[in-house]
């Protein structure tokens, strides 16, 4: 693993992506502590101010410091995005590997269901789930996780099918190993590489998906400083103070790009032939 890390940091994508993610992580862990102001504190005399010496990124309609709110919001945004991806990845990986190992009509049935789910546009599908579950941050997480599962199952299955053909799996079957041993101990360790790469790239989608849900009022609820929610709250004041919308929007874009770059770097680092 240290080897992979060294390879990763040697690629420019990995280095830049990793750097930004590290900064975002620091904000998520120590956000409120390093924030110059209390993210919830109103500064009534300084409403709608632009970037300046006191409020570096300006203030919103209540005079809350935008920089402090972004730093505080990193925690909920990142946590929700990573957790949603992890949920979708684990569910998809187990489903995909199992489907590839069993084969036959079980595989056929599972994959047709996956096809059917994937035919529904992703955003529409998450909206549907959130509508059923109710609007909250955790429900948005679950919805995104479920929406990611079919795609991850599909990718895992294609990798697992190649692994299924390998003779070490045949050897395990010939030895009389149980199905769960073969799936969990022989096959899964050999499919994690591509899955981790895909999952990293998907975190970027999760960040944007969560922001979209919050923007539509179906994710995090006020007074949370989740970034998508901040953009949504800034919308009515677009012409009075555009900075209010610009900075959280930039934060979302930056983290999404960073995870994408990191995923690309990871793919190159994990591929020995590159």
């Amino acid at each position, binding site marked *: 693993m240290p080897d992979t890390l060294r390879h990763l940091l040697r690629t420019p994508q990995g280095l830049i992506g990793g750097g930004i993610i590290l900064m975002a992580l620091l904000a998520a862990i120590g956000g409120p502590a390093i924030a110059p102001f209390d993210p919830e504190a109103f500064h009534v005399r300084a409403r709608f101010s632009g970037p300046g010496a006191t409020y570096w990124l300006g203030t919103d309609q209540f005079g809350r410091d935008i920089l402090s709110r972004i730093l505080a919001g990193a925690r909920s945004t990142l946590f929700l995005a990573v957790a949603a991806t992890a949920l979708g990845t684990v569910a998809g990986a187990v489903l995909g590997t199992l489907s590839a190992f069993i084969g*036959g*009509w079980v595989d056929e049935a599972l994959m047709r269901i996956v096809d059917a789910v994937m035919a529904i546009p992703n955003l529409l599908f998450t909206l549907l789930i959130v509508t059923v579950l109710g609007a909250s941050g955790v429900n948005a997480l679950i919805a995104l996780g479920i929406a990611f599962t079919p795609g991850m199952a599909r990718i895992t299955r294609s990798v697992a099918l190649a692994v299924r053909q*390998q*003779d*070490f799996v*045949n*050897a*395990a*079957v*010939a*030895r*009389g*190993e149980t199905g769960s041993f073969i799936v969990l101990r*022989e096959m899964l*360790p*050999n499919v994690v590489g591509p899955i981790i790469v895909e999952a990293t790239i998907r975190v970027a989608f999760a960040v944007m998906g969560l922001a979209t849900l919050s923007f539509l009022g179906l994710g995090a609820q006020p007074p949370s400083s989740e970034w998508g929610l901040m953009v949504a709250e800034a919308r009515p004041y677009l012409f009075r103070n555009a900075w209010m919308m610009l900075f959280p929007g930039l934060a979302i874009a930056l983290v999404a790009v960073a995870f994408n770059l990191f995923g690309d770097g990871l793919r190159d680092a994990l591929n020995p032939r590159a």
Partner: protein
Amino acid sequence: MSEAPAVLSVEGYDLSYGRFAALRDIRLAVPRGQVLGLVGESGSGKTSLAYAIMRHLPHSAVEGGGAIRLSGQDLRAMTAQQMRHIRGSRLGMVFQDPSASLNPTLRLGEHVIEVLRRHKRLTRPEARDRTEAMLRRVGLREPAAMMRRYPHEASGGEKQRVVIAAAFAAEPECLLLDEPTTALDVITARQILELFTELQAETGVAALYISHDLALVSRIAQRVAVIHRGRVVENDPAAQVFSNPREEYTRRLVAAVPRPDLRLVRDAPAEAAPVLAVQGMTVRYGRQGLLQRLAGRAAPLPAGAREVSLELRPGEILGVVGESGSGKSTIAKALVGLNGFEGALRHEGRSIAGPAAMDRDYRRAVQIVFQHPDASLNPRQSIGQILSRPLALYGTPDGLSRRDAVAALLEEVQLPADFAQRYPHQLSGGQKQRVAIARAFAARPKVVICDEITSSLDVSIQAQIVQLLLQLRERFGTGYLFITHDLNLVRQIAHRIAVMYRGDLVELADTAALGGPQSHAYTRALLDAVPTPVG
């Protein structure tokens, strides 16, 4: 040494990848009308040399001193533009895998027409007529029809004939052949070799024939150069290399080439009840569609093996030979429960109805070793973990801890005990195959099925693995079902040999009787096609 001026000559050539010296001070010369065989094991640098001559080296390659001359001109001084003209016109090439060297989106005729138009400046109709004549010359029936086909519509042998036609079409001065018959089955390989020899004599082209197969090269080449770790260690007339090698390395290489007249197994198996008996085994592939089954219109599924009957006595070595796709591996997989089958299978008198009926006793008694050691060992598990699994399933020998049992297994296959901590990618191909053998023997089996276990290994490693198998048999009395396409090898060790052809078992005879007058026509064709060592 012949006095004719060399068409192709390599003079003191060096090549390295980073700090690794791939080729050192290579000196070779091929005069007109002669074939120089270049023999070496994998990693010896023979393919690097071919790419160096083609001027098609990867970016990581660093060239040292020396010259590569084609009819006196130094190829190293050529520009990329000049080389593009020389390749294909004055310097032809034939590679190992014909399906990789033909463009799958072009009709077979186009491959030859392109060469003629580009290098001979023929008009399209002229080129087409010449191509038809060329394809007829390389022994393709109905060349006009063959020209219209795509590569996937032709067999491996037909494709390699087209590649040879394209190589000879531009009337090159020199040909490079890199293992041109390795991907083909024995009989086709023999035909391709005969065709090449004829065309070579007819055109007087100089040829460098690269191969790992010393027996084959010594038949077609006038001189043989042996390359070892980037150095040419021997460069002598073919007959002399084989019968009277000068270098220690060559001597070892020659000794490792299997000779059918040199039996390695002397004892005969005991006249006991068979440990494994197969009666009328048929293995089918694919599955019936649900709709077809409901409609009652299910077509019979294609069979990988039909009505095969054979039995294996305790301690017997039964060879199974046949070309690829003949059903050898299909039977092997059915015997260890990887394929379903019809027909009867009996293990020590007990009937086994199918894969589901194979209990722990059966699985312990019948073990398999696969062809590619890379694929049969899980890359994410250490050797110790890999060898522990059969011990966990079938039990550890009395009074031994798991750790000691693994060490004992490694010792049985002559590997150091500290290999238990290593991972498969840290081992060489031969070492990995030893681990796979140790895994099979952990169960103390009565039968080990060896599915082409030596065919991805170099000839000297192959000899060591076979020695190991024979020692283990001596010690444990294990019987082997030895599947291979190498007739010379199997005739050295097998008591009886089964010949398979397109899914049928066409012959099952004692090794000594094989190829006699009563033999099946296919068996005799197979025996004729195998290159036996000269001298």
